[in-house]
């Protein structure tokens, strides 16, 4: 394609030499908007946020979640892919042995520091098991304490619905526990697990 150049037009007419015509032209426009929003159909893009929520797209990268298998147990095999690829180094995993020998490993700890997270989505791409997703649609996380943003495994886990998963083989209670209670428990700040 050849180079096409367009000289921008500087408006220097008679109308532009006076203040009044443009002031009236502008007033006509703003008055139109004023009365349209006062009486007619409101063309307002503002959202009254906490009451109405903006529909986020299907691809919106929100808070992480850990998906489950059909038996209700986490899909994650603690392979450390996401921890390695994370540019913000916000994922911390500790692997543990699963009682079922056919399942090699599972995460004893899976913590994400959501304050460090940059929501790039590289962990989702790197996961070979589709165990971590960012499709929760959670747009804003606002808590009053810094500690609250340390999301542990149990908080990140999907809501477990027994009707959907018919024969749970292993619940969390069957599994070996991490050494200290605090390290595995959901944060005490009262975040719902969902």
């Amino acid at each position: 394609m050849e180079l096409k150049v367009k000289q921008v037009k500087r408006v220097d007419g008679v109308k532009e030499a006076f203040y009044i015509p443009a002031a009236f032209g502008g007033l006509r426009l703003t008055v139109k908007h004023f009365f349209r929003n006062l009486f007619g159909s409101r063309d307002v893009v503002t959202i009254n946020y906490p009451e109405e929520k903006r529909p986020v797209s299907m691809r919106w990268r929100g808070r992480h979640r850990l998906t489950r298998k059909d038996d209700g147990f986490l899909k994650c095999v603690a392979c450390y892919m996401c921890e390695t690829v994370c540019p913000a180094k916000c994922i911390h995993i500790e692997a543990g042995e699963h009682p079922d020998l056919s399942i090699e490993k599972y995460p004893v700890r899976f913590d994400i520091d959501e304050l460090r997270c940059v929501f790039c989505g590289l962990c989702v791409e790197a996961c070979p098991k589709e165990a971590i997703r960012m499709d929760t649609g959670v747009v804003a996380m606002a808590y009053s304490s810094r500690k609250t943003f340390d999301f542990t495994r149990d908080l990140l886990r999907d809501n477990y619905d027994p009707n959907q998963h018919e024969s749970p083989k292993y619940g969390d209670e069957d599994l070996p526990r991490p050494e200290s209670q605090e390290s595995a428990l959901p944060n005490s700040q009262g975040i719902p697990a969902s």
Partner: protein
Amino acid sequence: MSLATQQLSSLVTPPPQGDSDTSIMKIEIGPSHPAMHGIVRFTTYLDGELIVGMEPEIGYLHRGFEKESENSKWIQVVPYTDRLNYVSPLLNNIGYSMAVEKLYGIEAPRRAEFTRVIMGEISRITDHLTCVGAASMEVGAFTFFLWFIKAREYLWELVEEVTGARLTTNWTRFGGNATDIPDGFFDALQERLDKVKDIMDECDKLLTRNKIFIDRVKDVGTFSKEDAISFGFTGPMLRACGVPYDVRRADPYSVYDEIDFEIPIGSTGDCFDRYLVRMEEIRQSISIIEQAADMMPAGPIMTDERLMHYPDKKEVYGNIEGLIDHFKLVMEGHQPPEGEVYLPTEGGNGEIGFYLVSDGSGDPVRVRMRPACFNYVEAMPAMTVGHYVADIVPIFGSVNMIGGELDR
């Protein structure tokens, strides 16, 4: 005598004054000041309201992008580039990814390139909308600014549809894009572009012909062609001075040489020309998007080279090679061949260039970004000295300094 041949220092330091001479007032504009987009400081010397000296100080938003990149894998730099020019993140993504592709010596598939053109131009529009809107707001046209922000909102929703985020897009990969455009995207695109055009027309009526606005921006911050070139201006700032330099035409990358568009240029290089050039570029970008949408080919969005992208999940589960590739790519990262590249692309603000050095391992040896607005801020003393203190506002607005890009 052109400014470039003058000593720049004569503009920076004020005329000599004794201790008892109080006619020169030193005033610190910034770092926290309504007209300083982001954070930058201008030590300004005033004689009454007239600026007689100015000293820009940058670096308040330095986050160590380049050093941080050296400690990352190649792919981990992509999220960082979102945060360089944070009003047009996709253009940074594209610039960086294309530079890495050049290092590899590969090209993305055509569909990916066309998608990049569309998304990049959307990003350019948002960049110009923000810049023109903010600059106009500072000369008092607040309504204009909010209408432009409304237009930008429409476009950012499109960006969100495709990339999954409005600002921190992290969308391009090496050899393609992370996601393809979703179904029904083009209808939404056309509808949104029409809305943006309407808003542009309204705003044109409100401001372009308004004498008050013309008074504020005309013959303010005038910069000659020669000075602009010797200061290293690029992008809309250089084009406003009358030089038809656009990387998309001067050094065509991606598929821009198949697309028909005009390069708007100004005549005098004042703030009014910069405003008009940016307004015209928005219109040109809309036309580019419409052309690219018509020409959009079918096909993959990711190159099929090995070890460039994660294999399909089917491969990972069912094939040992796929699994090995996947793990290798995560653990060792992309390993472009040894060498160095510089790839200039046309950002929203001027030429964005990425200079990359690879030693063949998974870690970048050097990631250097050429920020477009660095040169503009350097020229601020030359542009403002001799004007009134109120003229800093339209001049600095038209410069469109983006802190993230300037200080990196």
